[in-house]
């Protein structure tokens, strides 16, 4: 054991010189090779024009679609491989918080590659902070500032519109409906975040996070509108969702046929497209809202 430990110490000493050099380099110039892990980080980097410098993404980097098509895939964000990541020779790892496992990230750090975890609170400030942090880490401060301004303006006009809502609607955000199990977004979730941005009240606030909900709880939640994470031709119709006899069919939403289908990634991604997604949801919820 002592042989191994002394070997490690020596190795660390040998690496110290290299790591010092790397730090100096990072302070002067933008990292040339970025490991971009996490949907929001990849989306922001693409928006900032950092795409050519991304050397690897992860399976949650779904937007834009070319990210996973063009870049190597390091696997699922929380089940990364140290050697796999290092094999792409990144200068920096920018990941959303929750990337891991922690011991793999520790190994990557030990290899002299800085690993930065970007926080993801599902709020407007959280999005702006994320854009600026990613921009700073990638050495793309100027485009990040511009994008942050654009997104900030988006949130501002959203807030102005939201102020005109006289009575917030009770909305149930349904993540999936498989085998009769309705999975909804409760409090402390990205669903809750987007609903409050869109000026709606989460009908499932009694539930924490994304959970399946019982039929009785659906009736008790009494949503006035249902948002589903699907749109396009394969989305379920209002007739199927609110079919008589189902729990959803006995809610106020059923009477109004208030079913809104939206793309889940856009809606829950909390990236630069969030103001647009929230305002789209708001228009769908309050069609009579006067425009500013």
């Amino acid at each position, binding site marked *: 054991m002592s042989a191994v*430990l002394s070997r490690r110490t020596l190795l660390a000493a040998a*690496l110290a010189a*290299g790591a010092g050099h790397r730090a100096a380099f990072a302070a002067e110039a933008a990292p040339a090779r970025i490991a971009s892990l996490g949907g929001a980080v990849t989306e922001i980097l693409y928006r900032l024009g950092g795409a050519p410098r991304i050397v690897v993404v992860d399976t949650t980097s779904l937007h834009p679609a070319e990210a996973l098509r063009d870049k190597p895939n390091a696997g699922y964000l929380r*089940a990364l491989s140290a050697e796999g990541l290092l*094999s792409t020779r990144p200068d920096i790892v920018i990941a959303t918080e929750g990337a891991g496992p922690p011991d793999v990230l520790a190994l990557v750090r030990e290899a002299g590659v800085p690993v930065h975890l970007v926080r993801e609170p599902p709020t407007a400030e959280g999005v702006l902070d994320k854009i600026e942090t990613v921009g700073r880490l990638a050495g793309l401060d100027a485009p990040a500032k511009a994008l942050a301004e654009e997104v900030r303006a988006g949130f501002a006009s959203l807030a102005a519109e939201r102020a005109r809502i006289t009575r917030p609607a009770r909305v149930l955000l349904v993540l999936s409906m498989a085998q009769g199990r309705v999975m909804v977004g409760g409090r402390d979730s990205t669903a809750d975040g987007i609903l409050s941005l869109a000026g709606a009240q989460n009908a499932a606030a009694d539930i*924490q996070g994304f959970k399946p909900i019982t039929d009785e709880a659906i009736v008790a939640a009494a949503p006035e509108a249902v948002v589903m994470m699907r749109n396009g031709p394969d989305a379920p119709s209002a007739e199927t969702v609110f079919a008589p006899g189902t729990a959803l069919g006995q809610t106020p939403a059923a009477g109004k046929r208030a079913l809104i289908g939206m793309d889940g990634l856009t809606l829950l991604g909390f990236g630069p497209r969030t103001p647009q997604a929230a305002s789209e949801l708001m228009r769908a919820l309050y069609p009579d809202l006067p425009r500013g």
Partner: protein
Amino acid sequence: MAEAVAAAPHSLPSGRTATGLAFAALALLALAACLLSIGTGAVPIGPARVLEVLTGGWADPMLARDSLVILNIRLPRTLLGLMVGAGLAVSGALMQGLFRNPLADPALVGVSSGAGLAAACVIVLGDRLLAGLGIPGPLPFALLPAAAFLGGLAATLGLYLVATRSGRTSVATMLLAGIALGALTGALTGLLVYASDDRQLRDLTFWSLGSLGGATWAKVAATAPAILPVLVAVPFLGRGLNALVLGEAEAFHLGIRVERLKRLAILLVAICVGAGVSAAGVIGFVGLVVPHALRLTLGPEHRRLLPACALLGGALLLLADVAARLVAAPAELPIGIVTALVGAPVFLWLLLGRNRLADA
């Protein structure tokens, strides 16, 4: 099943040379697996450079990244895989000898289910518990392996206590109680799965599929004191296990202290599998297939079987790990998928082959 094992001594491969050859082949296989595990991975490093790093080139700054990959990622990973694989296979052989059933598996003494439940508790409740106690996060990442190890040990201890009446441990009761415990921990884990959020659920799933991915020297250092002594101690149980094949009363009359043997075997398996599961998650089939395959080729003599299991178990887990990290690079497959994917058909094939022999 007991008859099959008892009948097998007649078909023992004769002579020391055959055994010697088999051991030489197994040792070679293990060595080859080690070399492959150190020499391959997502980062392309040529054999010459690997050799350079291993023979002291690690101080050369030109080799800094390569030596880091080899010395801090592949080497601990190889050692951990070797230990965990050997530990699982030896534990499997011990269980099969103890239960006199070639289909017994370390999971029978509740280690995996107990460890799984403890791990699920940490993954799902850990953050909330920490927040409740007012300790700032994140969760220290040694907590999960420590909890898994203790959970496995606690489950085995519980089963042992249930199955022991006035100093006598009933192996049959233990087996049945093990099934009940498996169902209970499965239900409790299900409850935690229900309470988990998306991320925790993913973590839980990946944990239960096993991985050598997070192998560090610290993990190797924490696992070695649990597994290595068991690997050394186990061949000394061989004579007792051989006698036990005849039945508990017969073994007792042959001068074997049966109760002590059972206690020792169960304890060793709990420690060994607990350490393996805590370091690498749940890895299936190694403990079942390796002893079974070796019993068919080497015969059921435990003093030979147990060390052979250690060699083959370690080698096979390393090979599975090499496959796990190469097929999806730069991502990697959970190793439990590879072992089960390869292990299950091989196991079936072995079973069919044995039935054919029995029919003939």
